Every structure is written in structure tokens, then in C-alpha cells.
């Protein structure tokens, strides 16, 4: 074994691909950053990656890390491509003292990493994306998808629609259409919506748009003809911008057009300009940069010249930026919890997982973090990896996004059976015995 290790090191050095220039110096918390700042989805990847990275940099600069331990962010460019994502994972997982958590940022990459995570003992936080049934912590020990899944979101958005219509019973006979990206991601809400349509008696119809979605005239002609009452959209990349423009062109009322939270960023509405006014989308955090934490970031990161993307300064606080920031914030809290549980400052992936499972960020803690009201309180348990399951609706007012509704809870009567079914299927296929969460 020793020989093999030695040969590995030698080979790595000789073939000129330094995998791990292991700094033998002080322990650092290794946080990989699966960026996608290139490729067709770069416009969405850049703000998220900046939010994620800036928060860690801010912790280092302001507090000297977490409990005195410095954080090392290891960026790796995936270009939103599954294969490059796998390469990134393999490259960064042993970096330094070992990666602590992965935020894969793509449904495709998440599916790749789920089986790897349990073998390599590194937790995955697919925040609001990825495999929905991973909410079942009994089966998916290493995967977390709080604060809410696509299924929960679909249900919450239908609740919002019901409220707007004057009650869930008013949904009967209404038409709700789903315009979705023809991919695994886009198909996520279909089953939930089908179940809900049975329950509430509305008509559901899915209209797929193929990647990349530059041309969707026919889809919108259909919508113009069939006049649905509401449209939900699971879109991604250029598809969002084109869809919003087309909707505006056929004069579909924007305040009856709701996107998933990946279809609700500044990028998506800007090309449509004024016409996008009133467009809605799901959200689990506030946009904007008026929170103390943002001020700290600008002060300690941008003004101190420590930012990876200095040109981004004016855009701090964009929807996707805040999403990256919130993700990093929860991860940092999981680190604190893990250190507390295991009473050590040198964490491993396995300890980090325990930290995530014990995560409890309430209002008070949010305030301490300088993020009061930025997002919802999160509490994770062994069996529930989805946490709070709360979704609000935000609206574009022509200049910025604003949350315009309460946070809705999904209809778990419909969703829980779906989660159980899917996770049990996974457990059976992969010979996993569900944990006992007592």
C-alpha cells in the first residue's frame, strides 16, 4: 500500500499534473466551488459563484475564518457540463484535507455525485435542485436539498394561484400550463402538478421547450390559442428570456406567469425590459444588498481588493448572488455545528455531514449573521433533509425583484407519497436499507 501511494505521487509529479500540492502547513477548511462561469448558462452561474465565494472570503477577511480556522475555496469550472463536473469532483475531493461539502449546481452533476458521496463520505447540498426524493434522509444519508424541493415549490406555487383565485376550490376548471425545459430538471414538477390537478380539478398541460430554447414561437402560439389562466415555467438559460418576451408579445398577463426560482433572476427579465413588469417567480430568500452581511462583503472583499470578480461590485445583491451567499452561510453554520458536535477544528466530510444534519439557523441566528429577513429559518433533522419547505413568490417591478407574498407550505399529502415512492425505489435498486432515525 505504501509503495502504491509512493508511485501515485511520483507518477503525478512526473506526468506534470499536480493533483494535490498538499500544503503541509496549517489545517484549512476546504470548500470546493463548482463554478460555471462559461458556456450557455454562464450568466446564471457567475452571480451564484460570486455570492458563494465572496461569503467565504468575507469570513476569512473579517473573522479570520471559522473559529479561527481559515477557509480555502477551491474553484473548479464545470461549464454546467456533467462530465467536467465529475472531473472537478474527483480533482477537488482530496484537495488539502479533503473537501467538506459539494454544491453541484446542476441536476445532472448532482445525480452523478449522489452515489459517489456515500462512498467518499462527503455531503452534498443540492439547494433547491437535484434529486427531490433526497429529502428523505433515511435513504439519502449524504444528500441535503433544503430549504425546499421542486415538488414543494410546484405545490406552493399552486397554493399561491389558489389564493389569488380566491381559494383552492376556485381552481376547479381553471387551466394551468407548464412551460418546461426539456430535460430532467424541467420535468421535475410534472408529476406533482398532475397529482394536484386531480386533487383540485384544474386542467394541467405541459409544453416542453428543447434546449437551448432560442425559438419558442410555436409554444406561445399554442398558449395564445388555448388561453390558460396561469402559466408556470421551469426554464433555464436563454429559454427564460425568450419566454418572457414571447409572453409579453402575446399580451399574456405577466402577473399570471410564474417561473421557478431558477427562472427569476435579473438576467431573465432584463432583455424583455419594461414588458417583463409584473412577472413572478418562486423564491426562498430576499433579493437586494441592504443587509449587514452585504455591507461586510463590500467592505472586506470588494473594497479590500480580494474579490475574484471585481467588476461584479455593483451587482452584489442580485437574486442569484444572494442565493450563493445564503448557501455559503448555511454551509458555514454547518461547519460550526460540526466543530461543536465533534469538538475539533479539523473537520472531515463525515463530520460535516453531521453538522448539516444538526443545522438549526433560526431568526435570532440570522440576525447575528447580519442576514435578518434575508431568508427563512432552517432546521434539519435525520429524516427530513428538505428542512423548512417554504416558498414565497417574488415579482419584478421593472427595476428590481421584490417578494410579494407570504411563504407557502406545500401540500405534503400529495408530495410525501411521491417522495416515499421515489426514494424507496432508489433504495431498492441500490440495496440500501433505510436508516432508523431514532
Amino acid at each position, binding site marked *: 500500500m505504501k509503495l*502504491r501511494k509512493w*508511485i*501515485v505521487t511520483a*507518477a503525478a509529479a512526473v506526468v*506534470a*499534473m*499536480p*493533483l494535490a*500540492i498538499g500544503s503541509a502547513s496549517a489545517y484549512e477548511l476546504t470548500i470546493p466551488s463548482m*463554478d460555471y*462561469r*462559461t458556456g450557455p448558462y454562464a450568466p446564471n452561474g457567475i452571480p451564484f459563484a460570486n455570492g458563494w465565494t465572496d461569503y467565504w472570503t468575507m469570513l476569512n477577511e473579517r473573522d479570520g475564518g471559522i473559529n479561527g480556522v481559515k477557509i480555502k475555496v477551491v*474553484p*473548479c*469550472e464545470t*461549464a454546467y*457540463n*456533467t*462530465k467536467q463536473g*465529475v*472531473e472537478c469532483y*474527483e*480533482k477537488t*475531493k*482530496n484537495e488539502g484535507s479533503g473537501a467538506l461539502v459539494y454544491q453541484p449546481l446542476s*441536476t*445532472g452533476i448532482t*445525480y*452523478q455525485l*449522489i*452515489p*459517489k458521496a*456515500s*462512498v*467518499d463520505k462527503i455531503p452534498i447540498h443540492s439547494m433547491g435542485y437535484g*434529486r*427531490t*426524493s433526497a429529502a428523505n434522509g433515511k435513504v439519502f444519508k449524504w444528500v441535503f436539498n433544503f430549504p425546499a424541493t421542486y415538488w414543494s415549490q410546484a405545490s406552493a406555487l399552486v397554493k399561491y394561484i389558489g389564493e389569488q383565485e380566491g381559494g383552492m376550490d376556485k381552481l376547479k376548471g381553471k387551466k394551468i400550463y407548464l412551460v418546461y425545459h*426539456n*430535460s*430532467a*430538471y424541467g*420535468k*421535475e414538477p*410534472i*408529476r406533482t402538478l398532475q397529482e394536484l390537478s386531480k386533487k383540485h380539478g384544474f386542467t394541467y398541460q405541459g409544453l*416542453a421547450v*428543447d*434546449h437551448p430554447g432560442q425559438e419558442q414561437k410555436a409554444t406561445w402560439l399554442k398558449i395564445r390559442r388555448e388561453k390558460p389562466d396561469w402559466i408556470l415555467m421551469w426554464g433555464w438559460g436563454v429559454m427564460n428570456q425568450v419566454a418572457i418576451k414571447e409572453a409579453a408579445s402575446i399580451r399574456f398577463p405577466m402577473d399570471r406567469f410564474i417561473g421557478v426560482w431558477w427562472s427569476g433572476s435579473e438576467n431573465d427579465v432584463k432583455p424583455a425590459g419594461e414588458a417583463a413588469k409584473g412577472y413572478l417567480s418562486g423564491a426562498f430568500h430576499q433579493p437586494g444588498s441592504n443587509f449587514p452581511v452585504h455591507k461586510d462583503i463590500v467592505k472586506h472583499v470588494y473594497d479590500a481588493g480580494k474579490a*475574484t*470578480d471585481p467588476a461584479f461590485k455593483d451587482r452584489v445583491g442580485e437574486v442569484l448572488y444572494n442565493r450563493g451567499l445564503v448557501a455559503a452561510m448555511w454551509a458555514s453554520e454547518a461547519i460550526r455545528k460540526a466543530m461543536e458536535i465533534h469538538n475539533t477544528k479539523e473537520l472531515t466530510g463525515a463530520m460535516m455531514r453531521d453538522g448539516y444534519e444538526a443545522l438549526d439557523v433560526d431568526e435570532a441566528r440570522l440576525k447575528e449573521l447580519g442576514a435578518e429577513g434575508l431568508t427563512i429559518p432552517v432546521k434539519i433533522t435525520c429524516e427530513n433533509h428538505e428542512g423548512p419547505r417554504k416558498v414565497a413568490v417574488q415579482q419584478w417591478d421593472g427595476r428590481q425583484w421584490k417578494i410579494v407574498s407570504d411563504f407557502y407550505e406545500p401540500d405534503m399529502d400529495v408530495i410525501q407519497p*411521491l417522495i416515499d415512492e*421515489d426514494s424507496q*425505489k*432508489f433504495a431498492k*435498486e*441500490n*440495496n440500501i436499507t433505510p436508516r432508523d432515525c431514532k
Partner: protein
Amino acid sequence: MFYRESGQFKTGYAADQAVFPILQDRWGVLLMLIIGFVGVPLVIDDYWANAVFIPFLAYSLAALGLNILTGYCGQLSLGTGGFLAVGAYSSYKLMTGFPELDMILVLLGAGAITALVGLLFGLPSLRIKGFYLAVATLAAQFFLIWLFYKVPWFYNYNATGQITVPPREALGFLVTTQKADIVVRYLFILSIVTVFAIAAKNMVRGRIGRSWMAIRDMDIAAELIGIRPFATKLSAFAVSSFFIGVAGALIFSVWLGAAESGETFGIIESFLVLFMIIIGGLGSVLGSFLGAAFIVLMPIGVKNVLVDWFGFTAVFAKHVEITTFGVLIIFFLIVEPHGLARLWQIIKEKMRLWPFPH
């Protein structure tokens, strides 16, 4: 000096027709096989296996398949990604439909199904040629990807259309999923690729290979000596698709473990595999391997050098990598349009004569 054929006399046509008529070549190949089967497993780790060796081998097989169609038979195809997807999805259906089936049979089955699909999409080659055919194969690419999203039967009606590999064994060894030992997975894919490479070499040096090349070089003349163009083209489509289908099954089951049709087997795959055979060498088995090595290793190499050595930011390095990729492709096309395999041949010629230049 050491690469000479003087003193090696062939005593029969059998010896003259051997794959590697020159002794040193035989030793070279043997050495490569020993390194591949014995040396690499000693040092391989997750990164090298998952990011370098397994993708390299899987893509070599795909490149080999495309090279049969494009390099040997002259039919330009941009549908490789779609055929890889057929291989992946049919292996998934076989694995979940017949859980007892040995992985080797699953691979062969996936190859056979892909061959049938390849035959179907090869039919237009009866009437259209060149770029027109290439663009027509794009129809296969887009249609197949769409089909695997749209028809739930292909992904066993699960919620999203993602397929995930179940644990399966080949000859009693677990070869799929993350639980399989990485060395076993590597050796499995290496064995499969070796067998297919030998099969390819045997085909291209025999009658069928000559028929393909005859069609490529001048289909009219070939027809007049009794080679039926349509049947020959179709056989190239079938064999090529078989190889690509097995490669797709391997990419899904042994390498990635999960796949989504458009995401994993998109149009970009078609171009990458085409790059491999053009940079490696059209109409060369060795070239398929060299090209796959180049295309798989180049981006990783550039990335590691730029990020780890020169401290570029990941994003800038990625942009530079994309640009460099393009520049290198153009550079290679200009310097040696016949690919790395030809370059290697020229080096060998030089060595044969060394130290006398003429």
C-alpha cells in the same frame, strides 16, 4: 538504430499480413498492453481513473466506431452523440429488465440495438453524400435525444428522465456503480476496448475493410468491381454503431453511473468524437486512440497547468482553455491534416533510416 526491419525476413504471406509485421512494433504493443493491464492498475486512483483513463478508453471505443464509418468508409456522421445515447439507454433497459444478465452480454446487446438504429439512420446514405449526409445524421442526433426525453418507457417512468446504473457484475466481478473497485472497473473497460480494437483491426485489414475503403475512395469504381455500395455503407453504419453503442453503454454504466440524454450525449459529443478521429487520423485504428487521448487529456492538462502552475483563476483558465483548444485544432489541421497517426508513422520512417537521412 533500434527500430530496424533489416534481418527480419517474412517466410509466408501469413507473416506478411500480420498486424504488426515488424518485431519492434510487436514488442512496443506488448509493452503498452503490459503497462495498461499491470502497470496502470498499480498506481491508479479515483481521479486518474474517472477523469483520465476510463473516459479515454470509452472515447477511444467511440472514436474507433466513428473512424470505421467516417475514416474507413468515408461517410461523415454528426450523429455520434445520439448513438452513444442509444447504447446507454438500451444498456439501462437491459440491465433493469433482465437483472441476471452478465454485463458483457448487456454491452453486446446494447451494441446490437445501436447497430439496428444505426442501420435505420444509414438508409439515407443510399441517396445523399458528403455534408448533406452529415447534416442528415444530425437529424438522428436531435431526434434520438428528444425521444429519450419524451418517451418515459426508456427511463422506466421515473420522475425526471435521469437514468442511474444498478450494480451489475461481469464474470462475477462487480463492475458498475461507485461500489465497484476502481481497478476492476478500469480493467473491465480496458479489456472490452482491447477486444474491440483487435476486432476493428481484423476487419479493416480484411475484405470488409477494403470494401469500406473502396467505397470511400471511389464508390463508382467499387460498384463496378462487385462491391455493392449500399450494402457496404450499411455494414459500415451497423459496425460503427455497434462500437459506438458499446461505448455509450460503457460511458453510462462504468464511467458516469448516471446519465441524462441531452446533457450527457448532446451534439457536443458528436463533434468531440469527430475531432478525435480527425486529429488522431482518419482511417487509422491507432489514430482513434491517439485522438481520444489528445481530446480527453488536452483540456485537463491545460486546465491543470494554467490553474495549478500559473495560478490563473478557474474561469479565465477555462476561457483560455477553450481558445487554446480551438487554436490547437487548427494548428494540427494545418501541420498534419492526416493526423497524429501519420505523424507517428513519419517518425517511425525516420527512425527506420536513422542515422542515414536517405
